[in-house]
């Protein structure tokens, strides 16, 4: 049997299962309206088909996966474009541009808005589309230059303030939290998450981690002796960080799997 024939047989089986599922889901619908039941049955069955098509990639690449992937990309692009139109053009431009247009789109007209200023982004937006016309495509660079310049300027100040200065400031933490002497510390020692011992331990981990991490990235001095030890600790801290990130990533992916299997068992098979 050639691979083409096998593919045809597989497609026929998938189509048959799809039809049976659609009929059964439509029949078990809760609505009084037959149309609603048939529509909901189709939507659930189609969602199941797409879920299983994506999962089929775990076995190997195949046309069902390709179809689901292409559909996802296409729908996402169209969805964002439509929302961009309704939220920005209709939501922000129309209420400031024209009373009759506002009435047409059922959005409140803004009488006292800065009507002239809104045409600047409109012009920039239109010339961005000149990329579609090769002869005047160079015009779109003005819009891109504006976008890149404005974003870079905006981000530079905010990242410098919040991601650099504030983070340095956040690293200045007390190494002995609520310290009232060794006796008091020993008497009240506990492993409670909000206790003094854990607070002190956490701050020491942050302090040692930051210092050793910085030492690891200090390349003007050879990593030998005490400096070398600190550098080794730094790389261990980095490894633990990467491990924690990977652990979180695993948790995220499992959550998505749980979500899909819950959908298959609950909405489709009704066994939950």
């Amino acid at each position, binding site marked *: 049997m050639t691979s083409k024939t096998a593919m045809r047989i597989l497609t026929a089986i998938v189509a048959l299962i799809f039809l049976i599922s659609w009929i059964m889901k439509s029949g078990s619908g809760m609505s009084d309206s037959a149309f609603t039941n048939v529509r909901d049955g189709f939507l659930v069955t189609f969602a199941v088909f797409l879920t299983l098509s994506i999962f089929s990639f775990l076995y190997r690449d195949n046309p069902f996966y390709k179809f689901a992937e292409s559909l996802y990309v296409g729908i996402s692009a169209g969805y964002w474009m439509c929302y961009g139109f309704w939220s920005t053009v209709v939501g922000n431009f129309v209420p400031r541009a024209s009373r009759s247009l506002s009435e047409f789109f059922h959005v409140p007209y803004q009488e006292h808005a800065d009507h002239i200023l809104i045409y600047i982004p409109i012009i920039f937006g239109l010339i961005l589309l000149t990329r579609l016309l090769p002869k005047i495509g160079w015009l779109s660079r003005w819009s891109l230059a504006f976008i890149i310049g404005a974003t870079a300027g905006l981000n530079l100040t905010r990242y410098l*303030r919040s991601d650099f200065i504030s*983070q340095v400031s956040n690293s200045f933490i007390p190494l002995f939290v609520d310290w009232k002497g060794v006796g008091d510390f020993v008497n009240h020692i506990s492993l409670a998450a909000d206790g003094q011992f854990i607070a002190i331990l956490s701050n020491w981990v942050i302090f040692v981690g930051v210092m050793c991490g910085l030492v690891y990235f200090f390349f003007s001095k050879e990593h030998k002796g005490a400096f070398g030890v600190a550098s080794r600790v730094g790389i261990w801290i980095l490894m633990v960080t990467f491990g924690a990130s990977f652990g979180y990533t695993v948790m*995220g992916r499992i959550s998505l799997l749980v979500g899909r299997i819950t959908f298959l068992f609950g909405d489709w098979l009704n066994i939950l």
Partner: protein
Amino acid sequence: MGLIISAVVIGGGLLWILYLSIKGQDVDRRIVYLFVGATVALAIIFRLEFGEVATPIVKSVFDKIENLPAGSKIVLSYDFDPAMAPEVNPMANAFIRHILEKKHRLFFMSLWATGQSLLSVSLNDVLKPEFPDAKYGVDYCNLGYKAGNEGVLNVVITNFRKMFPSDANGNSLDSLPMFKDVESLKDMDLLISVGGGKPGVKEWVLFAGDPGKIATAGGSAAVSTPLLYPYWPRQLIGLLGGTKGAAEYEAELIKTHPRFKDKGMPALRMMGPQTMAHVVIIAFIVIGNVAYFRSRRKGKQS
């Protein structure tokens, strides 16, 4: 009973894989996928659940909402898409329940186009049936999505009406009673972003919380959570990281407000399969290392 059946099935399978590995046979990657899938499926079918206790990073968000005076203004931004929804939607729903239970005013918005549709699901499935007395425009409002990423925050930090002439339903903001004393984000008591990409919690800290000196909290997908930890506790008052964070919040919500106990807390339900899957993955790592060290020792001997 479910736990015992799951343990026997999964444990038996793991022992078989350990036996194959020790014998030096390769285990196909598809067996690993199948195993993780079967583990999750068993845990879902048998409804395995484990208790959760809120950690300080989650508890601080909960306490903030719990202790704000009734009528406080809280922004809840839906900055996610369907791919992140299983993880972060439970957080968003828990926030809605808690905020409205405490009689705060809730301002919904979204920096992701997909967020607006997911928000309408939460409104229909959680807010309207569970809080039938909550009035639109008085107790809550939906500003909807605006394109512009952090640029949107840069504008609304000084003026809401410039970026949002109307809400998602086309009503002028001035027509909504809850907007009477609101000019910008600076008038808010708490900002909450639920998301996991860009723009998300980080952008809310950088472009709204920090410059406006407004209390900011977040709920993020697990993948991006480690990158947000450095902002806690000074730039973020708290953070819900992935399903675990959502489950801790739900546990605290049920403990403090028992009426939500029968609302089917999804994150708590997800932690059973999650835990079982983690156990299997750890077992695979151990099996892989045992097989590796055995093969290395055999290599040295020969």
